[in-house]
């Protein structure tokens, strides 16, 4: 652990009407309990949410923006992967 800073945590909040937790920011805390309480104090002051996820930033692994070409461009020109080439029967209204 860096001796001059507490560990950094990424915070995700689910709003009252929401279905998923959205990333809202980060904060420093010494342990998980403090991270969640800090998130409650910092990110839900104005009733922004009803559920908190806290993840230590070091546990989040992200794709490298430099690899965007090989990762994401090939998917751009493969229309046959999209589920749009058949007609749905009337009975299956809400697919």
């Amino acid at each position, binding site marked *: 652990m860096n001796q001059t800073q507490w560990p950094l945590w990424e915070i995700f909040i689910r709003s009252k009407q929401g279905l998923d937790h959205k990333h809202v920011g980060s904060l420093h*805390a*010494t342990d998980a*309990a403090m991270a969640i309480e*800090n998130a*409650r104090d910092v990110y839900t002051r104005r009733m922004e949410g009803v559920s908190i996820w806290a993840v230590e930033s070091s546990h989040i692994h992200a794709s490298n923006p430099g690899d965007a070409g090989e990762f994401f461009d090939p998917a751009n020109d493969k229309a046959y992967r999209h589920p749009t080439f058949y007609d749905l029967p009337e009975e299956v209204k809400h697919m």
Partner: protein
Amino acid sequence: MANVNPVQNFDALKVLPSEKSMEAYTLHLADNALIMGHRLSEWTGHGPVLEQDIAISNIALDYIGQARNFYQYAAELINQSAGGSQVPSFGGDLGQASEDSLAYLRDAIDYKNNLLAELPNGDWAQSVLKICCFAIYQFYVYQQLATAADPQIAAIAEKSLKEATYHLRWSSEWVIRLGDGTVESHQRMEKAMEEIWAFTGELCQEPSFDLGFVDYDLLKTQWQQKMMAVLNEAKINMPVSAWMQSGGTEGRHTEHLGYILAEMQFLQRAYPGAAW
């Protein structure tokens, strides 16, 4: 600026401890919350870490909110027993009570808060320990008051209980982290105990204007049990001395309250009825 009314009399604001129990008890609850909140607000902008600055400021705001609720109710009660029922806005007839006149125009001798509230913040250890002692008290007192015979007190208590529950969680965790922490943090927590312990007994003492809403013997037992559990985990010794300071509810305050009120009340006393 509104007309500046010369102050006529503060008689309506004088509620003697043993008389008019309902007004006195409500003021006691309000004063506790206001002085705790005002003290903690001194941390705003000075917290050791950004997130904790926000946390302790939030707690201060919670206390101010509770104070407002109780002061509004106290003003109603005072005005009713004086024959009126109107609660004027501050700056109006100063002979009647309002939440603002009760907070800003009473002297220290009329304040009925427990002494613990007015103690200085000290360092972080002292502040979190102070909040912890007070939060344990509020947690159990509000639990009892939530079923009080007076519906207004019960409603305020029920709402405030949720805040007190969070204050208890937050502060007890800090006491444990510091007590069972490094050598320095442990020493600071020990010192904090020495500073404030003698003021904790008053919290569970039955005040002279008690109305029977609260079983203070039960409160004391619960408070001590919870405090001991926290201190055990924090590896802090509960002091042996049983002698406790008292007098806050009777208007006999420490030297600190005078300074607090001088700062808090200056504006309203220098410019009566000021508004913006």
